[in-house]
C-alpha cells in the first residue's frame, strides 16, 4: 500500500511539474505583459526597465531556473496586475470558489445518484425517459449558453434573480444550477447504466431470498456494487467542474479563482496564471489518486492487489 502511494505521488508530482513547465513556456512565448502595464506613450527605456525588474529580460532557461528555485522556497511570485503576492491573492478569492464548487458538486452527486437509481429501477417508464432526456440535455448544452439563457429569463424577463453578485444565498442559485447540470447529468446516466448491470446479478436474488426488504436490496446491496464505476466518473467530473467554474464565474461575475485565472490570462499576468494552473493540476491529480484509492475501498477484489 505504501509503495503504491509513493509511486502515485511521484507520478503526480512529475505530471504537475510538466504542466507547470509547459504553462511557463507557453506564457512567455505568447507575448509581452508589459504592454498594458504602462501607458501607450511610455518610452522604450521605461519598458525595458520594467521588463528587467520583472526578470523578463533574462534568457528563458534562466528565468525557468529562477522560477523553480523560487517555487521550492515557497515564493510563488507577485501578480503583475494586483501587485500582491500570488498566494495572498488566491486565498482571498478561494472561499468564493470553494463555496460554489462544493455546493454544485454535492448537489450533483446527491441528486444524480438517486435519480440514476430510480431510473434504473423504473426503467422504460416515463420517469426513466424524462430523467435520461434531461441528462442528455444537461451534458450537451454548453454551460455558458445555459448561463446566459438563465440570466436572460430570470434576471431580465422575470426579474426574480440577480444576474451577478456575491454574498447572499440568492446569488448562488443560477451559478450553482449552471455548474451542476453537466456533472449531474453524467452521474445520473452512469449510475443508471451501472445499476442496470448490477440489478441482473444473482446475489440480489439471494438477498431477497433472505427476506431483505426491496428498498434495502436496491440501496444497500445493489448500489454499493454499482457505485464502484460511478465513483471514477464522479472523480473525473472534478475536471469538468474546474473547466465549468472558469466559465460560470465569468458569466456571473463571481469573485472567485476561476474569473481570476481568466482575467490574468487576458492580462498576461504570468505569476497568477502559473500559480492558478498549478493549483488546478494539483487538484486534478489528487482527485484521480483518491478515485483510485476509493476503488480499493469499495471493491474488496481489488484490495488484494495492493
Amino acid at each position, binding site marked *: 500500500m505504501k509503495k503504491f502511494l509513493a509511486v502515485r505521488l511521484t507520478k503526480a508530482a512529475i505530471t504537475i511539474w510538466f504542466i507547470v513547465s509547459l504553462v511557463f513556456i507557453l506564457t512567455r512565448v505568447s507575448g509581452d505583459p508589459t504592454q498594458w502595464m504602462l501607458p501607450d506613450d511610455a518610452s522604450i527605456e521605461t519598458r525595458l526597465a520594467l521588463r528587467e525588474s520583472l526578470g523578463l529580460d533574462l534568457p528563458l532557461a534562466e528565468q525557468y531556473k529562477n522560477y523553480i528555485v523560487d517555487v521550492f522556497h515557497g515564493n510563488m511570485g507577485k501578480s503583475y496586475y494586483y501587485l500582491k503576492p500570488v498566494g495572498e491573492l488566491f486565498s482571498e478569492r478561494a472561499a468564493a470558489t470553494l463555496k460554489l464548487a462544493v455546493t454544485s458538486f454535492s448537489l450533483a452527486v446527491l441528486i444524480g445518484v438517486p435519480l440514476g437509481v430510480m431510473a434504473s429501477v423504473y426503467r422504460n417508464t416515463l420517469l426513466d425517459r424524462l430523467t435520461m432526456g434531461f441528462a442528455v440535455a444537461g451534458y450537451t448544452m454548453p454551460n455558458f449558453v445555459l448561463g446566459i439563457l438563465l440570466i436572460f429569463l430570470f434576471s431580465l424577463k422575470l426579474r426574480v434573480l440577480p444576474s451577478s453578485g456575491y454574498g447572499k444565498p440568492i446569488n448562488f442559485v443560477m451559478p450553482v444550477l449552471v455548474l451542476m447540470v453537466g456533472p449531474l447529468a453524467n452521474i445520473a446516466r452512469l449510475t443508471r447504466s451501472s445499476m442496470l448491470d448490477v440489478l441482473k*446479478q*444473482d*446475489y440480489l*436474488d*439471494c*438477498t*431477497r*431470498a*433472505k*427476506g*431483505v*426488504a*426491496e428498498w434495502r436490496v436496491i440501496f444497500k*446491496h445493489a448500489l*454499493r*456494487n454499482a457505485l*464502484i464505476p460511478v465513483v471514477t466518473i464522479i472523480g473525473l467530473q472534478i475536471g469538468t467542474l474546474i473547466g465549468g467554474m472558469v466559465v460560470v464565474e465569468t458569466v456571473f461575475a463571481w469573485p472567485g479563482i476561476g474569473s481570476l485565472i481568466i482575467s490574468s490570462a487576458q492580462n498576461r499576468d504570468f505569476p497568477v496564471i502559473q500559480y492558478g494552473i498549478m493549483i488546478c493540476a494539483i487538484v486534478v491529480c489528487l482527485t484521480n489518486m483518491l478515485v483510485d484509492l476509493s476503488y480499493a475501498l*469499495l*471493491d*474488496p*477484489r481489488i484490495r*488484494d492487489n495492493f
Partner: protein
Amino acid sequence: MNQVDNVLEVKDLRTYYYSKSTVVPAVDGVSFTLKQGESIGIVGESGCGKSTAARSIINLLDRSYTRIEGGEVLFHGQDILKLPLNEMNGIRGKKISMIFQNPLTTLNPVFTVGNQIGEVLSLHSNLGKKEVAGQVVELLKMVGIPSPEARVNDYPHQLSGGMQQRIIIAIALACNPEIVIADEPTTALDVTIQAQILDLICDLQAEKKMGLILITHNMGVVVRMCEKILVMYGGVVVEQGTTRDIFKKTLHPYTGGLLATIPGLNGDQEELYSIPGYVPKFTYPVKQCRFCNRCTHAIDRCRMAEPPLFEITDGHWSRCWLHQSGNEVSRDGA
C-alpha cells in the same frame, strides 16, 4: 391425506412469462406436497420450468415479465402467494430459505461472508451484535469451514467454490427454516466437492428435520437425496412418485427417455438412446400433450388434448393417455 401433516402444499401453480407478443406457460399447473423432514426432487432439463416453479413458492420472480397466474402455495395451511411482500419477507430466510446454483455469483462481492450470514440473523431475530457474531461462527463450524473465526472477515472471492457453497448453506440454515429449496446446489462444483456438499445437506437435513425441495437435472444426485421425485417437462409434471417407482417402474415415455440417455446406467452401450427432436417453445394455451411430438408411443389422442395426471399406484402418477386406466387425479393434487 392428513392435511395437518403437510408442511407445504403446492396446488396447481401457474407462472407465466409475458413478452410483447407471446405468453409462455413456464409453470402450468404443478402440484405437490411436502411433509416435515421429507425431501422431494424436481428433475427435468433446462427450460422445463423447475427453477421457476421453485422460485414461485417464495415469489422470487422478475416481475417485469413474470406473473403467478394461479394456484395456491399453502404453508401450514396458509396461502403465502396472497401475502403482501413485507409478510413474505418474514417467511423468506426464516421459514423457507433457498440455496442457489452458482456460489460465486450468489454471494455479494463487496460484503464479508460474516456480514452476509449475520444479515439474515439480524433480520429475523432480536439478537444483539455480539450474539449474532457468535452465531455466525457457530454456523461456519456447522457447515464444516475450518478456522471459522478467521473466515468471518473473508470476502467471497477469497474462498474456493466448495467453501462458498457452504457459506450459502450457512445463510440458508441460519434461522432453522422448515423448508430449504436447493436450486441445482452442486451443478457448478467438482464431483468430489459435490459429494461433500451433498453429505452436508443430508446430515443437516436429518439433524434439523427440514423439508428439502431439490431442483436438479442430475438423476444420480436426485436418487441420493430424495424420497419423492417430480419429473417436469414443458412446464408440467409428467410423472410423480417415489424414487424407486420412478427409476424401477417408470411410466411416462419422457421419463423413460431421460433415464435411457444417461450413459452407463444401462451397462456398457455402443450407442446411447437419445430422445428424438428437441424441446419446442410452448405458448399459451397448450392444447395437446407437450411431449407428443417427440414421443415414440404417441397416439392420436395425444395431439388432441392434454392428458391430466392419472394415479396408477398409490402416489405414483403419470400424465399420459396411455395410463388412462389409472384414477384421474383431481386438479388439487389431493
